């Protein structure tokens, strides 16, 4: 009996991510959710621009490669045309929280019935490690070589907190994948986000605090520690919005 095997919703293509990059774990959790809900055949995923740009090769469902930041708009088009299909986007912090902020906020405020997997690793990975909207104060990157200076470069955007101030979105949770316990929680959150969509509840966004060992300049293990010590204190894990609670109250 299998205790653990690769989910069917992933292709056999080897991932191009750097050793120890937790994108791979998040891909797998999404695929496991599609498998468990039995929706792979009616799912269309939308890949971002960034490290996950080639996610279209890794998910076995139909895929669309969007322009930088536009995945929620592309997903909106897909969902409006095919309301019975399952539509998700997979986006990084530069894609979602910088160039694609308008698309994100407006998809949320329309309570668009889509699922967004938002991977926050506080850096632009694909282009070689530049400052992201989620880079921590003082964080050294290629474009903040003296550390992110709040005076000139501002402070990080806490996407889950910000979006949860909107009335419309259905479900927003922040999770991490830096240890077994957190991965299991992340899995539950991602599954819930897809189930919400299948049940027609509306917009669900799961922010996944992830790693970038290469551009953080840390070993994969140290990167996991850095998530614990630096990222999670700034980006507390938890459910930020859950309108199912309101529904029960009604």
């Amino acid at each position, binding site marked *: 009996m299998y205790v653990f095997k690769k989910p069917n919703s992933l292709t056999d293509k080897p991932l191009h991510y750097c050793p120890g990059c937790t994108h791979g774990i998040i891909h797998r959790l999404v695929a496991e959710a599609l498998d468990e809900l039995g929706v792979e055949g009616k799912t269309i995923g939308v890949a971002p621009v960034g490290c996950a740009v080639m996610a279209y090769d890794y998910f076995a469902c139909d895929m669309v490669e969007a322009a930088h930041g536009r995945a929620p708009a592309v997903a909106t088009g*897909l969902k409006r045309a095919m309301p019975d299909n399952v539509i998700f986007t997979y986006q990084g912090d530069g894609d979602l929280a910088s160039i694609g902020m308008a698309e994100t906020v407006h998809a949320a405020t329309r309570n668009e019935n889509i699922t967004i997997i938002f991977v926050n690793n506080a850096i632009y990975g694909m282009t070689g490690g530049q400052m992201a909207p989620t880079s921590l104060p003082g964080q050294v990157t290629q474009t903040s070589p003296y550390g992110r200076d709040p005076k000139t470069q501002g402070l990080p955007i806490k996407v889950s907190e910000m979006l949860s101030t909107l009335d419309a979105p259905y479900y927003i949770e922040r999770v991490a994948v830096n240890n077994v316990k957190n991965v299991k929680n992340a899995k539950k959150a991602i599954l819930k986000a897809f189930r919400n969509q299948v049940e027609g509840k509306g917009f669900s966004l799961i922010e996944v605090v992830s790693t970038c060992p290469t551009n953080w300049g840390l070993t994969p293990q140290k990167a996991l520690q850095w998530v614990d010590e630096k990222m999670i204190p700034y980006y507390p894990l938890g459910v930020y919005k859950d309108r199912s609670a309101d529904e029960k109250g009604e």
Partner: protein
Amino acid sequence: MSKVLMKGNEAIAEAAIKAGCRHYFGYPITPQTEIAAYMAKRMPKIGGTFLQAESEISAINMVYGVAGAGFRVMTSSSSPGVSLKQEGISYIAGADLPALIVNVQRGGPGLGGIQPSQSDYFQATKGGGHGDYRLIVYAPASVQEMADYTIKAFDTADKYRMPVMLLADGTMGQMMEPVELPETTVQEIEKPWAVRGTQNKRKHNIINSLYLNPEELERTNIERFEKYKVIEENECLYEEFMMDDAEYCVVAFGIASRISKNAVIEARKQGVKVGLIRPITLWPFPNKVLKQTADKVKGFLSVELSMGQMIEDVRLATECKKPVKLCSRTGGMIPSPEQVLESIINLTKEAK
């Protein structure tokens, strides 16, 4: 089939519905907002989508999504908004998706004005966005043609799997004329490339414009340009008016062609043998007929609502064999028939 009196913008919207378009994404901008308003009323009643996006950028990317799923889809805007859509149009072209983009032009550059213009000719016909690609560009000259070429645009977009533009202007969008809308039966063609879910029966489809391997990207571009050659052969449309014995040729499209026709008629009354060639597709441009005409006439007059953009294509098409003069107004101003007539008379003096 009876005629109804409609605004050009409304004719586009209703014709799109007749062509089977059930998905419209837009953002308000003068002078084309009637299209969005019309769609907002009609789409919910026929089970379609009307969505006012947060920006033109979002609207065109929603179009990209629906086009990827293989459904007929459109957006409309006016010049500044169409500039914002260029990113998405380039992706739609790069992913070989069919879609209709309507540009009801206003004066530019920048915020420009809200009066009619044809100064997006370069943007529409020379790419607009980044990369090697083309749009088929229809330039209607009446409300009837707004409807007819909207329908045709959806067909050619599907046939060639590419974005198609309807390039109108503020006058065309706002003017009211009788129009006959055909009862079309939409024949949806097979789109095996579309993303509608694998149903666990086939390998996944991918809608994409990324090719990291330069050989592959070059091959893709070359193949796309093979398709463009076929389009240049088969899809070029133009109208000839009083050209049989013409010694001078006016070239004008859209609203400028209507003004020019009056000027040509008036010039004929004065004994000037002048005719008009009206490009209906701006790309493909009617190069062949213009080249042939260059061997027959003494000179050309390009009449445009811009500082002179199409005139460059007229010179290229005619290989500069004969003088090509410009008659134009810009910034939202429209040349009068008298101005065009005067330019024709001047041409006869300069090109003997």
